[in-house]
């Protein structure tokens, strides 16, 4: 019973932290689905959103706004910053590159990464800023079933809930709206999309805005967990194996990939760690991704792309 409880605790903790990986991966999937671009700047966007949020919040609380109002205004401010970023990226980075191939667009997002990282720290500062939006204390559940119960971090639960709502919303957006259909159309063929009356620049703005808002959501949770700081951009590195496992084009894939990585690395750390040496958490995701690449290169949920020759 003690062992079962422990496994369950590790598994739950892993799954919940996996949700947070999924959140970052989602931003990538959205842009990739909608414009065929692998957006290297997603990590930088999380940093920017987090910095805008935390600095505005600090300013407002310092000026003695009531807490709920301060949080609301800070969220709106950060959302506005992400909208501005989306507009700037479309106008100056992607707009001039319509009808260019994916690699060119990918390179341009690498450039955008450096600009975003530099600019956001220049404007909002480069310290570590603590963010307290969600409770981060622990919860003991099922203590009548297992001796000692199971310890769960409340923050992780919040993260899971928010990610669930976000994914449901996005799924409906992509499937049920004409804008969602237009996004998928633009990803497939720029010229054809233009010919049926879809303005590409508007669509790209919408895509980057949505990715920016997902980055903001990721920033609220990761910021509470780690504090808003530069190292948050490295989350993008952890999202990469998640994407490879789930498939670059699949929203559910990003979720399942995140869960697998989260749960897998925690379980491996606890149960394999003592036998083969610790530190598994740091490389587990990449090895898992490598295996997926060998067995199913399009990822678990990715579209298999058939090229006509």
């Amino acid at each position, binding site marked *: 019973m003690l062992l079962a409880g422990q496994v369950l605790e590790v598994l739950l903790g892993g799954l919940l932290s996996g949700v947070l990986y999924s959140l970052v991966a989602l931003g990538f999937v959205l842009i990739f689905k909608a414009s065929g671009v692998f957006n290297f700047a997603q990590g930088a966007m999380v940093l920017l959103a987090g910095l805008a949020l935390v600095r505005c919040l600090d300013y407002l609380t310092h000026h003695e706004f009531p807490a709920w109002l301060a949080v609301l205004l800070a969220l709106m401010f950060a959302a506005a910053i992400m909208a501005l970023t989306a507009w700037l990226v479309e106008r100056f980075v992607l707009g001039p590159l319509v009808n260019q191939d994916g690699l060119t667009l990918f390179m341009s997002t690498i450039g955008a990464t450096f600009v975003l990282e530099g600019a956001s720290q220049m404007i909002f500062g480069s310290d570590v800023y603590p963010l307290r939006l969600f409770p981060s204390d622990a919860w003991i559940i099922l203590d009548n079933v297992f001796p000692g119960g199971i310890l769960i971090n409340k923050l992780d639960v919040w993260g899971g809930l928010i990610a669930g709502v976000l994914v449901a919303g996005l799924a409906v*957006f992509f499937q049920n709206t004409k804008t969602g259909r*237009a996004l998928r*159309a633009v990803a497939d063929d720029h010229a*054809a999309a*233009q*010919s049926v*009356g879809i*303005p590409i620049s508007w669509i790209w703005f919408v895509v980057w805005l949505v990715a920016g808002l997902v980055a903001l959501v990721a920033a609220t949770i990761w910021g509470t967990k780690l504090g808003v700081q530069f190292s948050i951009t490295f989350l993008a590195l952890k999202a990469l194996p998640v994407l490879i496992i789930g498939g670059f084009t699949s929203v559910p894939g990003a979720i399942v990939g995140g869960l697998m990585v989260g749960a897998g690395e925690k379980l491996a750390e606890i149960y394999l760690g003592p036998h083969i040496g610790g530190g598994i958490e740091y490389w587990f995701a990449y090895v898992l991704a490598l295996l997926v690449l060998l067995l199913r290169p399009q990822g678990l949920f990715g579209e298999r792309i*058939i090229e006509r020759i």
Partner: protein
Amino acid sequence: MKADVEPRPAVAGRSAVAAGEVLLSLEHVSLSFGGVRALRDVSFDIRKGEIRAIIGPNGAGKTSMLNVINGFYQPQQGVITFKGRRRHNMRPYLAASQGIARTFQNVALFKGMSTLDNIMTGRTLKMRRGIVAHMLHWGPAQREEIRHREAVERIIDFLEIAHIRKVPVGKLPYGLQKRVELGRALAMEPELLLLDEPMAGMNLEEKQDMSRFILTVKDSFDTTIALIEHDMGVVMDLSDRVVVLDYGRKIADGSPAQVQADQAVIDAYLGVAH
């Protein structure tokens, strides 16, 4: 049905009434890419209700012409008038909103999407409800979706592609992809439909089907058609008037019979190969 009508006006029915009215006119249009002059001083018009063919040898500038009409290219010189209004700074999505639809030489479909979704994208400009209403899928937004879906189903029935409604178009054979692409353009209910080699790569039976569709579109969808085609038999059978381009210049313009008899055309194009 109209092969032997020499001066046009005698054609029966609606198209005769509309024949005089100019839908689109191009005057002295020139287009170049750096040193390459794709179109040189080309003038012609497209009248309401007709099928207008644009022919010419490879590299004559036919697709460039279509791209100019559709707003992909901006001509350096010339005046383009559509529905009586002079156009400035045309963009493809603006052309679409004014009633110009097109298909592409190398089928340009949204490969990951189903036949139904591809054709639904043609309704993009006709759908008015906002994102939020569509996401909630309530009342007016739902009725709107249903109404457009009905229109799309009629097109699917007309083109006889009901059996592939849910199939991702990337998996369809070429002939069917061409048909889906026509369906997407029709879903826009265009006033002017541009077809870039609608029969390219098709076998005889598929060509006959496509010809039948094009004629029906002209007659019952109230659509004017401009098409580029290499199959001379098809061009002569389908079109009311033909414009011939060669090296970016217009070398002939008239009824199929006139064009066929034109010495410049024979020299440039029809006769030389024989």
